[in-house]
Each structure stands twice: as structure tokens, then as C-alpha cells.
């Protein structure tokens, strides 16, 4: 039993199954983060006082982290392009770089969290910190998810390159779409939480 259109595109839709699947999944993610953004605006507009992000958060660290995540997005898309050019070794180093950069992002985030806890700033401190920890925490969970998937595709999952290179390239494209989405979420989180 073989499910059709896992590798080749269906002519009337122009897509293979997983491509449509990941965009649908990302749509639901848009609604998830959308609901949280909306809650953030609602709570902020309704609040008597609301601190500016730059009064409490470390902007240089946040900026570095933004750069780290953008770079990881580039290495991710380069990993895919390498596979398109049939260069497996290059693919591995680019995807490896993506994973490492994601870990760097989490480590920096960890330092930021630790600094907040040291100063006695917890989610319960104020609604601002509640939102900050919830949104960045949920985003970090998405990063961890991405690391797990990418690590699988870097390690055991990459065996597929030998048996079914086209399908494997699709997998990297799908993983990439997810990863870029996580990047976009951060692109919006960063100004919302740090700069405003």
C-alpha cells in the first residue's frame, strides 16, 4: 500500500502532500500565536501601568539572539539548497550549523531568564513579566521542537538521502518552512517585548 503524492506533486494542486500539510499546520500556529498577541494587546491596553520592555530587558542580548536566529534561518535554507545541488556534505554542515545556532539561542535565552530570576522577577511579578515568560517560553518550546526534528534529519533520518533523495529533500524543505516560521514569530516577539 502506497500513499500517492508523497514525492511527486499532484498536477491539479501543484503540491505534494507534506507541503500542503505543513502550511496548514503553520496556519494553526498563526492562530495560536495570534491569540496570544491579541491577549497581550488587550491586557496592555487595559492596564493602568505597563513598563517599557527596554526598562527591564537586556536589549543587546535580545538583538544578538535575533541575529542568531536569522542566521540559523539562512543556514537552514542553505542546507536545502545544498541538497538541491546534490551536495550532501555541505548539507550536513549547514544543518549542523542551524542546530548549533538554535542551541546558542536557547543558551542566551537561559542567561536572560537566570538574570531575571536573580533579580526576583518571576511570571507572577506582573502581567508584563507573565506575558514575557509565557510568550518566550512557548517560543523556546518551538525552538526545542525544531532542534529535535533537525537533529533527526541530520543524524538517523539522513539515511533516506541514499534510498529516496527527492523525498528527503522535501523533508528538509518542510523542516525549513517550520523553522522559518519560528524565526518570523521571534521577529515579531522581539520588538513587542523588548523594544516597545
Amino acid at each position, binding site marked *: 500500500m502506497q500513499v500517492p*503524492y508523497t514525492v511527486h506533486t499532484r498536477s491539479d494542486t501543484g503540491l505534494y502532500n507534506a507541503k500542503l*500539510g505543513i502550511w496548514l499546520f503553520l496556519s494553526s500556529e498563526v492562530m495560536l500565536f495570534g491569540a496570544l498577541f491579541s491577549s497581550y494587546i488587550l491586557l496592555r491596553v487595559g492596564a493602568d501601568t505597563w513598563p517599557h520592555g527596554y526598562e527591564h530587558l537586556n536589549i543587546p542580548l535580545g538583538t544578538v539572539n535575533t541575529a542568531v536566529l536569522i542566521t540559523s534561518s539562512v543556514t537552514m535554507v542553505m542546507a536545502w539548497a545544498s541538497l538541491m545541488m546534490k551536495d550532501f556534505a555541505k548539507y550536513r554542515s549547514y544543518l549542523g550549523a542551524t542546530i548549533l545556532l538554535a542551541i546558542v539561542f536557547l543558551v542566551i535565552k537561559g542567561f536572560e531568564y537566570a538574570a531575571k530570576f536573580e533579580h526576583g522577577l518571576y511570571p507572577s511579578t506582573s502581567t508584563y513579566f507573565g506575558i514575557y515568560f509565557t510568550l518566550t517560553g512557548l517560543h523556546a518550546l518551538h525552538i526545542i521542537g525544531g532542534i529535535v526534528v533537525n537533529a533527526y534529519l541530520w543524524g538517523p533520518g539522513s539515511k533516506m538521502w541514499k534510498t529516496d533523495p527527492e523525498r528527503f529533500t522535501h523533508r528538509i524543505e518542510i523542516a525549513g518552512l517550520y523553522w522559518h516560521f519560528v524565526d518570523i514569530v521571534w521577529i515579531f516577539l522581539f520588538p513587542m517585548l523588548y523594544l516597545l
Partner: protein
Amino acid sequence: MEHTAGLAHGEHDTSHELSFWEKYIFSQDHKVIGIQYGITALLFLLFGFTLMIIMRWQLAYPGQPIPLIGQWLGDANAPGGIMLPEFYNQLGAMHGTIMVFLGVVPLAVGAFGNYLVPLQIGAPDMAFPKLNMMSYWSYFLGGVTMLSSFFVPGGAANSGWTSYAPLATIATTGQTFWLCGMIFLITSSLLGSVNFIVTIVQLRAKGLTFMRLPFFVWAQLVTSFLLLLAFPPLEAAGVLQLMDRLAGTSFFLPSGLVISGQPLHVSGGGSPILWQHLFWFLAHPEVYVLILPAMGIVAEIIANNTRKPLWGYKSMVYATIFLGFMSFIVWAHHMFMTGMGTVISAFFQTTTMIISIPSVIILTALLLSLYGGSIRFTVPMLFATAFLPMFGIGGLTGLPLGLAPSDIHLHDTYYVIGHFHYVVAPGTLFALFAGIYYWFPKVTGRQMNNALGRIHFFGSFIFINGIFMPMFIEGLAGVSRRLYDGGQQYAHAQGVLHWNVFMSISAFCLFFFQLFFIINFFWSMKKGKKVNSDNPWDATTLEWDTPTPPPHGNFIKPLEVFRGPYEYSVPGKSRDFVPQSEQEKV
């Protein structure tokens, strides 16, 4: 056995024999997963119904020990068999949660959708079989989490199925279980809906254009979009409420909240209304998640048993799409009592009136489909025809709730309970029963017993109305829906309280008549009359082109579709039905 399994492993041999675990437990076959969903969901429906039976005893005979099962409920819940108010609240919250999220939706979408959608579109399986398996197990975990919450200190969630903040925020541990359970269930729904949409869009057989899809498939497609886009806001809300409960934030807790005379030590600044917005942003589309698959099932059965094409197939499809779209912009009609401004209230009253139009179009089309047909009153058809007036009552009684002036009187009374139960119980559940009787021969190769089926139908039909009709009377009299003693303390309730006993006895009778279904279900599986063809109902859609029961991979011959889904009684044909896969003879 181990030896051969070891040899076959890793060879990707098509003749690879599946072990028991792969075949029945962690199966990736959409039909097995559909059956798993079906059985689990039916058990949850039975469990949720039992919770309500216990509540109905308390409502009819407040303060009297519950017979038979009272002694098993434990001293923390019902000392001496007499129910405590706290336990009543748990039962109420869990009845709603289980029926909606663990019973009806998994049965309508998980079971019927999983089993039938790939068959009706001529696909070998769902687009992502592994994902399909994961969504079942995520649902299963969600169910286990919900059930286990009965055993934690303080018992299960007890703040209503809506879990309004701040009541739910300060509730006992059971609420945390409820939230975690919901996150599993939402994950399951998201994986499932992605799978359904991709399957329907990508895996349609050759020649099966969108306007040739059976109406059931359309209903599942729109339902999947609703699940995909409406559930995430509730997930967000669930995460925020978990943070409120576990990390001490106050997203839903306003400043200066006082509980039992004690000011609550939180930072404050949150908004309880925010929870309601996020909750109803899901929960209104959820109503259509409950009803659309049911309409799909009824449409299939009506076309088959009237031996006529559906009246106005296209208008039904467009109405369904419009319905799905509108369902996202009516949610605040659940919140007229939150002190909303008149402009906003007028907007939501208007959209609510507009959304009734497509529902009426679908119902009218189904009703007109009966006209002039030579109807076969089989058991599935009995349930399907009963669906029409029952859903009609449910829908029409919703209109006064959608208009703010009348809603102010009716809000949170038994009228509301009557209204949505007419939609979901004699509405959706009847359609689901119809579906079980209708597709049982395809799944098992045997017919369900006709006589037992008729007893089940007439018993259910009479007593389900006996439960819900008096609710309108109590509600109009102003009896609140959440009273532990059914309203004994209230002067304005005295004139209608005698209905409580009537409703409870009806509920017990309804329970009794479900036994006929349970016996029929298991007896027919083993001993039912064997079907003598793959298409016992003389139906047109593709699921009847498969062997009975369909093997892994479904279709044994290559498939092409040449016509629309409901070509019944076409003039000039030798038979009164033309299957979709039958080629026109030139």
C-alpha cells in the same frame, strides 16, 4: 514468529506480516484507527451519560441516597450515597467536557471521518498514516488525563465545561488535569484536521472533482478547517490559564479579587472576559464541528433511502462553506451578559441571525429531498428522518438566545440546556446512530438486527423528548441551569419543579433503551445476518466499491469516477442507482 519477523524487518517487503500490536493497537490503517476512535468515543459517551444519570437522580430526588451505585461513589463524593454539592459540580463539568470533546467530536470526526473519508474519495489511506495514529493516541491520553482527574484531591474539574475564570483559576487540582487533558485533545484535533484536509484535497481518485464529492466529505472538509483554525485560540487560553494556576500569573485575575473574604495575593491586572472571548472563539465553531458531520451522515442516508438525488446539492455545499466562515464571527453572542456595548451587541446579533440562513438552507434541502421519494424506512433512515425535526427544534429555539433582549431573560437557564441538547443529542447523536446502523455492514460484513434497532429508535425518540422538552418550560420560568437541588429553594421555580421528576424518569428510560443498542451492536458483530453483496443498500458512493470489510489499502481494482455522488433513479437505467465508478456505456 519472532524469527520470521526478524527476517522480514528492514526489507520493506509488501508481504511483511503485521504483528498483533501493529495491526490492532498501533495501527496506521485509517479503518482500524477509525474503529479505535469509534469504540473509545462510544465508551466515553456511555460514561458521560452515566454521569448525567447520577445528576438527574439528585435533581429529581435531592438529598436522597442514590440507589445501586451510590455506595460506590466514596465518602468524599457522596457520604451514605447522598451526593455532595461539590461532587455535583464535578459531574456537571465533566459531563459537558466528556460529551463534547471526548464523545461526540471523536465519534463524528475521528471515527466516521477516518473510516469513511478515504473510502468515499477513493484513496488507499489517509495522507499521513503515522500522524493519524498519533492523533488517536493523543486523544486517548487526553481521555485518560480527564478520567484520572476524578481521583486527585478535590476531584475532577468543577467549574463547568466552559472553565470560566476566575472561578476555574482558583479551583482544585482537577482543573489543572482538565487543562492538560484539553491540550492533548487539541493536539489530536490539529493533527487530525491537517490530515483530513490534505487527504481530501490531494488524494481524490481520478475524475472525482470537488463538485462530485459526497456531501459527507464536504462536511468533513469544512469541519476540519474549523478545528484547524478555531482550536488554537483555546490552546492559547489553556496555556494562559495553566500559567495562572501554576506560575502565579494573573492573566484572567482582575486586581482586588477577594475570595471568601480574603484578598487574593496576585499581581492582578488581568481580565476574566479575555478567557470568555478566547473560549468562545473556539466553542462557537465547535458547535458546527458537532453538527456538520451529522448533517453529512444524514444527507448520505436520506439520498440512499429515498432513492433520489439530494435536492439542491450545490446550494448545500455553498451553504456549508458559508456556515463555516460565518461561525468565526458570531462567538460573542454567548457573552451578551458581560456588559457589552450596544454597537458590538448589534453586530453579533446580526451575524447570529445571518448564520441561521445557511443552516436553514441545508435543513430545507434535506427536507425537500424526502418529497416524492419512495422512502425505505430502514433503521438508519428512521434516525435520519428524526434528525430533521429534532435539529429544527434545536435551531429554532436558538433564535431567542441570539437576540440580546430575550437572551437576558433566558441566559443560564434550563432553556439554554434544552436548546443545545436538542441540537446535539436528538440531533447529532441520532445522526451518529443512523451512521452506525448504515455503515455497520461495510465494517463487519453483517447487518445489525432490525427489530432491536427499531426498539432502540422508538424508545430513544420518545424519551429523549421527555427529557429536553420540559427544559424549555423550566427555563422560561427562569430556573437556573446550575442548581444542585434543581431549584427547590427558589419561589419562582415552585410551579415547574414537578417536571424534574418527569425528566429524570425519562432519562432513566432513555438509558434503558440504549441497552438494546449495546446488545444489538455486540450480538450483530458475531451473529448478525451476513450481507450477500459488497453494496447491501444499493448505494452509489465509492465506499461500497470495496471488498467487505475493506482490506489494508482499500480498493483492489484501479478506480475512476465518472459522475456525481447521488445518481439514484436515473431515467432509462435498468437499476435505480448508478455507482460513481460506473462508466457510461458508449
